[in-house]
């Protein structure tokens, strides 16, 4: 088990000094779901380091533990063994603002778009205190600006059921970003969208990342999406889930959709695809 002192002093002499400059670090993380015979090994002895301001994509077949990593880093679940550090501290204790967007928009149906996007400002410090001090008007302007940035100007007073899936996903991105998170977790946020909306939102996402520079961890099935958005792509294999490749994406920014039809781009996605399909000891492969 994790020693209690680790919560207060995560950096001890026995640990490698390089930890200090990694914003997110997974160290020999193993995670299993369930018990006994029905136990599923989602992750085995996984190491992963993400520098501050990096945009890392996790790709791999279904069941390789991509989403598990996301949940571990967000603190939604606790690792069965191993350590997860965020900003040099054990996850959960770190004073880091986290934003998260899921495959489903998960907006609250009883709130308007404006109030949905307002939610993090109501909950996350330091905005929480400002919210209570009735700085709602200023927050409202900020939300309207962000909504306009993702193409939702004029929709802030609509309820979620009045909007299309693509619009909801845009609003969901706004909710993940409104509190200026240092760490942004994206769990296949564009997975359920049509191709045109998806490509448009890649551009929106890239702009938002380039202006705000949060550290991003993106889980995706779409290799093109990973190559378009990420600065680094980690390929994972299933059963047991682990990282088998970690490579930098060399294309200059801002990237465009046209670039994704460039031969070099195709070579990269082909290489990723081959790697996932022929992952060692993987019993199941999904391109």
């Amino acid at each position: 088990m994790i020693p209690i002192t680790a919560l207060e002093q995560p950096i001890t002499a026995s640990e490698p000094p390089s930890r200090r400059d990694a914003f997110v670090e997974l160290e020999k993380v193993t995670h299993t779901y369930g018990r006994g015979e029905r136990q599923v090994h989602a992750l085995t002895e996984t190491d992963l380091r993400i520098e501050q301001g990096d945009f890392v994509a996790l790709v791999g077949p279904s069941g390789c533990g991509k989403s598990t990593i996301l949940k571990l880093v967000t603190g939604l679940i606790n690792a069965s063994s191993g350590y997860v550090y965020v900003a040099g501290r054990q996850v959960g204790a770190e004073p880091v603002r986290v934003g998260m967007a899921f495959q489903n928009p998960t907006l609250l149906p009883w709130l308007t778009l404006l109030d949905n996007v307002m939610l993090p400002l109501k909950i996350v410090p330091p905005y929480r205190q400002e919210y209570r001090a009735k700085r709602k008007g200023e927050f409202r302007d900020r939300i309207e600006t962000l909504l306009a940035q993702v193409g939702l100007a004029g929709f802030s007073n609509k309820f979620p059921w009045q909007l299309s899936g693509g619009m909801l996903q845009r609003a969901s991105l706004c909710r993940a970003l409104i509190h200026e998170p240092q760490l942004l977790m994206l769990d296949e946020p564009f997975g359920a969208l049509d191709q045109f909306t998806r490509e448009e939102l890649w551009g929106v996402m890239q702009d938002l990342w380039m202006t705000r520079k949060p550290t991003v961890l993106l889980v995706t099935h779409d290799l093109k999406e990973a190559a378009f958005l990420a600065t680094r792509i980690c390929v994972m294999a299933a059963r047991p889930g682990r990282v088998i490749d970690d490579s930098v994406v060399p294309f200059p920014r801002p990237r465009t959709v046209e670039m994704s039809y460039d031969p070099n781009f195709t070579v990269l996605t082909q290489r990723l695809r081959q790697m996932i399909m022929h992952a060692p000891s993987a019993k199941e492969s999904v391109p």
Partner: protein
Amino acid sequence: MNSQFRRHIASAALIIGFFVAWEVLCLGFGVRDIVLPRPSQIIYTLFARLPAIWPHAMQTLYTTLVGFGLGIVFGVLIGALIGSSRLAYDVGYPLLIGFSSIPKVAVVPIFVLWFGAGTVPAVLTAMILSIFPIIVNVAAGLATTEPELEDVMRAMKASKLDILLNVGFPRAMPYFFASLKVAVTQAFVGTVIAETVASNKGIGNLMMIASSSFDVPLVFAGLLIIAALGVGLYVIFSLIEVRVTGWARRNDEFAMG
């Protein structure tokens, strides 16, 4: 709003039709008023003896509202506890089921024993009759909150209280209001039961005295008053429900369309 209004008109017309049919059948078959008085006789009695009936009606309304109010407060508290804690759910549910199986008439004498005859046993009976649907629905509303919505909050490191206030309670609102409409009529039943058994005030007491002197039109006038009060409160809570939980209704239509 317009279709809502039309719906009210239609239901009112049907209800009036029911009373007209009652009147006509009683006249046609020559039913005596000691067996079943005609609506016109009941309404005549109601207005002729209103000064005598009115204080009893107010007593019943007051008792019911106090009991119902207590039922809401404790129902929401207990429902929130049961709905948000696994342990409280496991412990509370069997107790609740057992408790709700007890005929409430049986507990009135116990309340009378503890608090004496009068208003207090009636308030408590109204409370225990109305509390059960509220607890069950609030607990169900909280327990069925989608885990994804909670994950959204937990990713922001929201406290349990934050999650309850921002996701749990709003999510449980439609359930809560559905239960209020049932609970308010149950509260009337509770009040009248207790008044019938042990009180010298209230519509229940009035009906007991009237029936022992074979004043059947007055008994029915009492029933009419209770029914009217029950319907009135039901309508009030329905209107509040539409305003507060409109998102849930529109969402259903949206999903169906």
